[in-house]
């Protein structure tokens, strides 16, 4: 099973894509998935200070579980309106 990771705005520009798939690992959390992402895409580390996360469209803490099949969105500070 995989995890779908979504990127937006400046982070999508930096990573060069809006979506990618990662293999799911037992016990995955927001932080563990993010750290594997940073290993593959070091530029993500420049954003982590201000990123929020959403698991399946719900804001989630860094220690929230990320189940197999879930969608993890990396959310830069929003600026709608």
């Amino acid at each position, binding site marked *: 099973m995989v995890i779908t990771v979504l990127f*937006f705005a*400046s982070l999508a520009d930096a990573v060069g894509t809006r979506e990618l798939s990662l293999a799911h690992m037992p016990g995955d959390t927001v932080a563990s998935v993010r750290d594997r992402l940073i290993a593959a895409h070091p530029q993500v580390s*420049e954003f982590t200070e*201000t*990123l929020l996360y959403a698991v399946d469209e719900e*804001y989630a803490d860094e220690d929230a579980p990320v189940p197999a099949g879930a969608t993890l969105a990396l959310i830069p500070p*929003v*600026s*709608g*309106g």
Partner: protein
Amino acid sequence: MLIRVTPERLNPEEAIEAVRRDEAGAVDVFLGIVRNTNKGRAVDHLVYDAYPSMAEKTMREVAEEALERFDLTDSAVLHRTGRLEIGETSLLVAVSAGHRAATFEAGHWLVNEVKRRVPVWKKEVWADGEEWIEGPESLGMERAPATMRGS
């Protein structure tokens, strides 16, 4: 409750009709509009990115919370995405209530919460460059003060 994230033009009349009720004596409508300047710099146009499914979900949560916090009969929240020219409407919030005070309070609160919580991002494009505007009204900015920001 009318909730929509769309690349199509936003129509205030549609939002008004969506919240209008025979028992509601007051309707307040807010339009967020693309300004021709920001911080003294001439803006050519904006591009809005969004996480559409989560944005609609979050807008619905905020709109439902407004119905509970204020004495509203209904509310509508619409956000446009894609390229917007100067003068076009990016955000449309409409609320109805029995009396006017609730509509002004609820409208202001709703716009603030949409700007804090809804996953939408704005890119400013000038004659000589462009930049994603991120924060400072968002939830993330409350966790990380300006002096701690990564970039």
